[in-house]
């Protein structure tokens, strides 16, 4: 069944325009995204992103499972920030139901979340360069990423979809080997980061493909509700960890890197610097790791939260991830809305991609770091 193109694309066109389907099966589409393009040669006249190929009905599942049963789903919404989403959900339910979290669990949450963020940015770095033609750094990044995944596998048991958080803490404590491995990873990452920078930053091909390409203006960002590294590359230093601190982030000293260019190069530089800032946070959290329990004495599986509407947010690797939760006082949520950052980013692409070339489309989509599963949920 062929979904008819959007009415906007049905306007009368001259003989030199044609429709091109980019995706949903495409090696550079960052998931199953379909871009319906109206082209004149290489120039994009109109662009209509078509999504829904990865829709797994997470919001419907949330209404059919109890609060604790929805926990494994949260890692799979955006599997590259699976830990951040998992712990963000736990923290939201804890705030709603007024459950206290011990300080050691909060510090552990910060450490594993920042490791998750570095891992996501490393994957983004490798695939972004792969998209624009630089095939080499991909496996270097994956080698570093393997170190993170081994560290996280030690404590949680999984590499990608962790169900590590529990209401009131985390499911398992970390040990000395974890701390030692994390510290040696930080040393390694600090040696690798200049290498990545040197490898591509001055490269003439990289510069020509990224500098000045895909400029997102401040008005467009405000109109579409864009957050995350894309917004910070325009000069707005908005970060949920600073604006609405959670899990003890207010006690760590870190900077929010910004650039003013708003183009692909600026987004690239912001993410490289964010990796270094995450290393700083992990180091401070390890140095100040308090003692104590990491979860409540009794496993919390039934909740009686107050009835009403709630909204809590965390900073994922892609931006502001918000959860709007409606509770009717019972053990099953009435509704959970997942406000994911990539949804807003992709909705702005129809405006940003107009007037660019097809090759620039790949660079722009790669640099804004869209992950389709969190758009389709």
């Amino acid at each position, binding site marked *: *069944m062929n*979904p*008819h193109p*959007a*009415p*906007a694309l049905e306007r009368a066109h001259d003989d030199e325009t044609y429709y091109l389907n980019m995706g949903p099966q495409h090696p550079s589409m960052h998931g199953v995204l379909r871009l319906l393009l109206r082209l004149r040669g290489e120039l994009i006249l109109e662009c209509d992103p078509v*999504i*829904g190929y990865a*829709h797994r*009905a997470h*919001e*419907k599942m949330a*209404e*059919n*499972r109890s609060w604790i049963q929805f926990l494994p789903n949260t890692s799979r919404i955006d599997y590259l920030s699976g830990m951040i989403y998992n712990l963000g959900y736990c923290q939201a339910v804890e*705030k*709603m139901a*007024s459950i206290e979290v011990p300080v050691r669990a909060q510090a552990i949450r910060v450490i594993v979340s920042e490791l998750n963020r570095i891992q996501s940015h490393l994957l983004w770095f490798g695939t972004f360069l792969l998209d624009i033609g630089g095939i080499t750094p991909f496996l270097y990044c994956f080698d570093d990423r393997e170190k993170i995944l081994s560290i996280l596998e030690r404590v949680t048991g999984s590499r990608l979809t962790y169900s590590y958080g529990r209401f009131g803490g985390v499911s398992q404590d970390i040990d000395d080997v974890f701390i030692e491995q994390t510290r040696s990873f930080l040393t390694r990452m600090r040696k690798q980061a200049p290498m990545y920078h040197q490898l591509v930053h001055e490269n003439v091909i990289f510069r020509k493909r990224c500098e000045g390409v895909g400029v997102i203006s401040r008005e467009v960002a*405000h*109109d*579409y*509700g864009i957050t995350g590294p894309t*917004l910070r590359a325009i000069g*707005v230093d*908005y970060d949920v960890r600073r*604006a*609405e601190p959670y899990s003890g982030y207010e006690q760590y000293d870190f900077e929010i890197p910004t650039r003013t260019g708003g183009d692909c190069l600026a987004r690239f530089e912001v993410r490289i610097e964010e990796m270094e800032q995450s290393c700083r946070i992990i180091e401070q959290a390890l140095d100040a790791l308090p003692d104590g329990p990491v979860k409540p004495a009794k496993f919390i599986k039934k909740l009686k939260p107050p009835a*009403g*509407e*709630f*909204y*809590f*947010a965390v900073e994922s690797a892609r931006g*502001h991830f*918000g959860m*709007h939760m*409606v509770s*009717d006082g019972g053990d099953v949520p*009435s*509704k959970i*809305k997942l*406000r994911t950052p990539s*949804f*807003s980013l*992709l*909705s*702005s692409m129809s*405006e940003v991609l107009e007037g660019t070339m097809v090759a620039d489309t790949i660079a722009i989509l790669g640099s804004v770091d869209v992950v389709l599963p969190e758009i*389709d*949920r």
Partner: protein
Amino acid sequence: MSSLDLSNLELGSEEAEYSSVGFHYIHRAQAGRIVAVAEAFREAGYHLEMLTAEDRRTDLEAMRLVYTFSRLDQLDRHMVTVDLAPEIPGAQAPSLAGIYPAANWYEREVFDMYGIRFDGHPDLRRILLPDDVEFHALLKDFGRIEDAPDEGAANK
């Protein structure tokens, strides 16, 4: 940019405790006034953070729309709810796509999942579900797990 002026908009406003619920104010608006409310927020520099709907036909006799407006430079979150007629099809609200382009895709998702129509939306069609299905997935009377054929032990 002016400061936020929500008078004369027939809003029932309440202050909320941020540390327990996550927002600072909750306003109840009429469907006919939501465009003016959005314009007031836009004038004051807020962006549309989220737009969703709830199926409250059983307990509140309404289909409810929920908007969240927020700021980037300081922490100030306003939640606005609009109650519509409890009929699908039938429930409809004015579209905010002309004021906040972000609302374009959010309203398409609400239409797809709940069947609420938005007047003035430039391109109201389904976004997540296939184009030719006839159900609206997040309505409470569609697709409950109890109605699914039973495989394995029941756990409800």
